C-alpha cells in the first residue's frame, strides 16, 4: 500500500502531497515572521523619542549579503530546472552553488554578529559615555578602539540621533569627537557597561531575534540542500520524479527564506 499522490499530482487539485505540505508550512512561517514583524512595528512606534537607534548596522555588508541570497534564489531554480531537463551534472553544479551561497551568507552574518558583540558601550562615573570596540580587557581596565565620547543622557545602549551627524562630520574632518587612537578606561571609572548584544536595548533585541531566527532557517535549508546534493541525490537513479519534487519543495522553502531577508534588510538596516 502506498499513500497516493506522493509523486504524481492529484488531478483535481493539481498538486502532489509534499507540495501542498510545504505551502501550508510556509503559511505558518508567514504567520511566525508576521508576528515578529508586527512586534517590531509595535516596539518601534511605542519607543520614546530618540530611543530607537538607527544606522548602527553596516549597510554595504548587508547589501552584499542580500545579493548573495538573491543569487542563491536564482541557482536554486536553475538546479531544479536542470533536473527537469534531465541534466544531473548541471543540477549538482547549481545545487552546490546554492549551498555555498548559504554558507557565505552565514559567514558574513556571523562576522556582523561578532562586530556587535565586541562593541562596548560604557557610561562613566563623570556622566560621559564612550562606545567603541573592545580590544583589551584586564581586571583593572578595558581598552576600546575607535572610541566615541558624548554626554550620557539616555540609558545604556542608546545613541542620540544627532550623534550620527556629529560622527559623520568628525569622520569627514578627521577630528571632533571621534578619536582614532585607542582609549583606555579604568574599571573604577565605569558606572555601567554593556556590549551590543540583544540585552542592550529593544532594537538590538529584535535585531538579534529576527536575524537569528532567519539564520537558523538558512542553516536548516542549507543542511537539507547539502543532503540532496550529496547522499540524498542517489534517489535520482531510482526515482527521478520524486527526487525532482523534493528539489522543488526545498526550493520553495529557500525562496521563502530569501523573501524574509528581503523584508529584514530594509527594516533593520535602512529604516
Amino acid at each position, binding site marked *: 500500500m502506498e499513500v497516493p499522490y506522493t509523486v504524481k499530482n492529484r488531478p483535481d487539485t493539481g498538486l502532489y502531497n509534499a507540495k*501542498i505540505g510545504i505551502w501550508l508550512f510556509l503559511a505558518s512561517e508567514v504567520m511566525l515572521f508576521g508576528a515578529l514583524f508586527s512586534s517590531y512595528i509595535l516596539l518601534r512606534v511605542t519607543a520614546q523619542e530618540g530611543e530607537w537607534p538607527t544606522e548602527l548596522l553596516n549597510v554595504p555588508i548587508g547589501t552584499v549579503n542580500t545579493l548573495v541570497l538573491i543569487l542563491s534564489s536564482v541557482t536554486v531554480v536553475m538546479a531544479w530546472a536542470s533536473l527537469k531537463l534531465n541534466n544531473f551534472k548541471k543540477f549538482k553544479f547549481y545545487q552546490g552553488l546554492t549551498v555555498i551561497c548559504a554558507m557565505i551568507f552565514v559567514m558574513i552574518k556571523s562576522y556582523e554578529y561578532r562586530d556587535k558583540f565586541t562593541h562596548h558601550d560604557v557610561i562613566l562615573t563623570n556622566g560621559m559615555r564612550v562606545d567603541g570596540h573592545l580590544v583589551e580587557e584586564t581586571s583593572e581596565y578595558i581598552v576600546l578602539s575607535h572610541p566615541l565620547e558624548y554626554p550620557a543622557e539616555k540609558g545604556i545602549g542608546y545613541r542620540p540621533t544627532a550623534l550620527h551627524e556629529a560622527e559623520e562630520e568628525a569622520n569627514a574632518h578627521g577630528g571632533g569627537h571621534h578619536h582614532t587612537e585607542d582609549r583606555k578606561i579604568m574599571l573604577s571609572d565605569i558606572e555601567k557597561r554593556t556590549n551590543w548584544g540583544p540585552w542592550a536595548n529593544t532594537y538590538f533585541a529584535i535585531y538579534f531575534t529576527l536575524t537569528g531566527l532567519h539564520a537558523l532557517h538558512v542553516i536548516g535549508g542549507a543542511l537539507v540542500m547539502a543532503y540532496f546534493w550529496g547522499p540524498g541525490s542517489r534517489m535520482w537513479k531510482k526515482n527521478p520524479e520524486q527526487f525532482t519534487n523534493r528539489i522543488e519543495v526545498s526550493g520553495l522553502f529557500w525562496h521563502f527564506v530569501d523573501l524574509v531577508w528581503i523584508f529584514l534588510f530594509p527594516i533593520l538596516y535602512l529604516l
Partner: protein
Amino acid sequence: MDSTEAKEHHGAEHDAGHGHDHHDPGFMRKYIFSTDHKIIGIQYGLTSLLFMLAGFFLIAVMRWSIAFPGEPLPVIGSLLNTFMAGMTSPVLDPETNELIGYAISNDLYNSFGAMHGTIMVFLAVVPLAFAAFGNYVVPLQIGAIDMAFPRLNMASYHLFLLGGLVMLGSFFIPGGPAQAGWTSYSPLATSIPTDGQLYWLIAMVIIITSSLLGAVNFIATIIQLRAPGMTWMRLPFFCWAQFVTAFLLLLAFPPLEVGALLQLMDRVAGTSFYLPTGLAISSMQDVSGGGSPLLYQHLFWFLGHPEVYVLILPAMGVVSEIIANNTRKPIWGYKSLVYSTLVLGFLSFIVWAHHMYLTGMGTKISTFFQTTTMIISIPSVIILTCLFISLWGGSIRFNTPMLFALAFLPMFGIGGLTGLPLGFNYSDIHLHDTYYVIGHFHYVVAPGTIFALIAGIYFWYPKLTGRYMSEFWGKVHFWCSFVFMNLTFQPMFAQGMAGMERRMADGGAGYSVANNPDAIGALADQFLKLNVNITFAAYALGLSQIPFIINLFYSISKGRSVESDNPWQSTTLEWQTPTPPPHGNFTTPPKVFAGPYEYSVPGAAQDYNPQNQKS
C-alpha cells in the same frame, strides 16, 4: 507475501521513504513507533486522557484551598508535601502546636492553577479532540488508507509527548512549575523566580511545533486523499470541523510561538521585549527597558481566541455525527453548518482583543473588537440552531453517546450565551476576571467539549475494539456527570455577578465582609459559602468518572460484541470497513456515491444508505 521476505525486501531499500507496509513488525514498531494513523490516534487518546485526569487532580487540590483556605489538605496532604517540598504550608494545632497537616500555599495554588489551565487546554482537550479523534476518524471517513505524511504523524505524537513530559517535569524541580496563570502574562512571568516558567516556555514551543506538523498533515490529507467521489459537499461535517480546526492551529499557533520565544529571550538572554522603562522589581534591576507588556498579551490572545474554537469545533463535529446517526435523519442545514464553520474560522482571527478590554483600550479599537465579537456569535448561533432543528422529525435513539451529544447542546448554549455579556466591553467592566468568566468558559469546555468527546469515545469504541461499552454504566456515568457538572459550574455565575474574582487561593475570603466589616463592595457571605458546594460537586464529578474509566478498560475484552461492522447502522465510511480496520483501512478502495447523512431516504429498503453504495 511471506512476512520475513517482506521485511528483508524492505530493509534493503529503507530510505525510500515509504516502507511502512511491514507485516508483523514487532511490538515497538507496532505500538510505539507506529506510522499507522489508527495507532497514533489511540496513542494520542490515551495520553490525553491521562493528562485530563492529571488536570482534574490539580483542580481537586485547588478547590480544597478555595473552599477551606488554610485548612490542611485531607488524605494527600503529606504526600503533596513530600512531592512539592517547600510549597505546602504546614498547619499547626493552635493549642498543642502539633503539626496537623499541610495546607496549600499561594505559590502552590498558583502553580497548580497555571498547570490546570495549560494541561487541560494544550495537553488534554486539543490532543484528544483534534489529534486523537482526527487521526483515528478522518482518514477513515474520507476513505484514505492513511494520513498524507505517516512519518510526520509519528513525529508529531512524539513531540507532543516530549512537550508534555517537559511540562510535567517542571513539577519536580525546586520552586515548582510556572505560576503566572495559563496566560503567563509578562512581566509577572518574567519576574517569577521559579525555573518552572522556563520549562513552561520550552514545553510550549515543543507542543506548538507538534501541533503545526499535525495541522499540515491533516489539511494535506483532507485535500489530497479523499476517495473518488468524496466531493467537498459530501464530506462528513466532522471532517469539515477538523479541516477548519487545522487551519486555526496552523495560522494561530506561530504567533504564540513568537510570544513564547520573546518571553524566553527576556528570561534567558536579558532582552526587554515585554519589560518597559520604569520597572522597579528588585530581582530585575539590570534590564534595559523600552519593551511593551501589552505586546505579549496581543501575541497570546491572537492564538488564545482561535484556540477556543480549536476546542469547540471538533466537539461540534462529533456531536453532529452522533446526532445524525441517532435521529436517523440527515443533519438539518448541512451547508449552513459548513459555511458557518468557515466563517467562524475566519472571524476567530480578528476578535482576540476582547480579552483585553480593560487594558486601557480606546473607543475605536474596542468598537472594532466588540463588533467582531458580536458578529462571530452569529455563526455559533447558526450552528447550534441547525443542530437543534436536526432533532425535529427524527426517530431519536437515546443511547449513551446520544445522551452526551444531546447534553452538549444546552450546555454549550449556556456557555455561549454567557459569552455575550463578556463580549460587550461595557458589561465586561464588571464581569472581567470574575468567576462569571470561569463559569462561561467551563460551560463550553467541560460540559460542552468534554461531553462531546466522551460521546465520541462511546460512539467509536465499537470500531476500535469490536465491542460496545456497557450501556447501563454509560448511563450512570452520564446522569452523574450531567448533574454534577451543573452543580459545579452553575453557581459560579452568581459568584461572578457578586464580584468574586478568579485566581484567588482563598476563594475570595480576603475580600469578604468578615474580613472587611466596614467596607462597601466586600463579598457577601452567601457567595463565599457556595465555594464549599462547588468543591464537593467537583469531587462528585470526579468520582462520577470512575464507572467510565472501568467501563473503558473492562469492555475491551469483556464488553458485548458487535453484531456487524456497522453496529450503529451508520452511513459514513469509517463503518464500511472491517472491525477493527486493518492496516490500509479498506479491503477494497472505496468509491463514494452519496452525501454523508443519507438516513431514512424515502423509498429506500433500510433507513440508512452508506456513502459507498449506489442508492
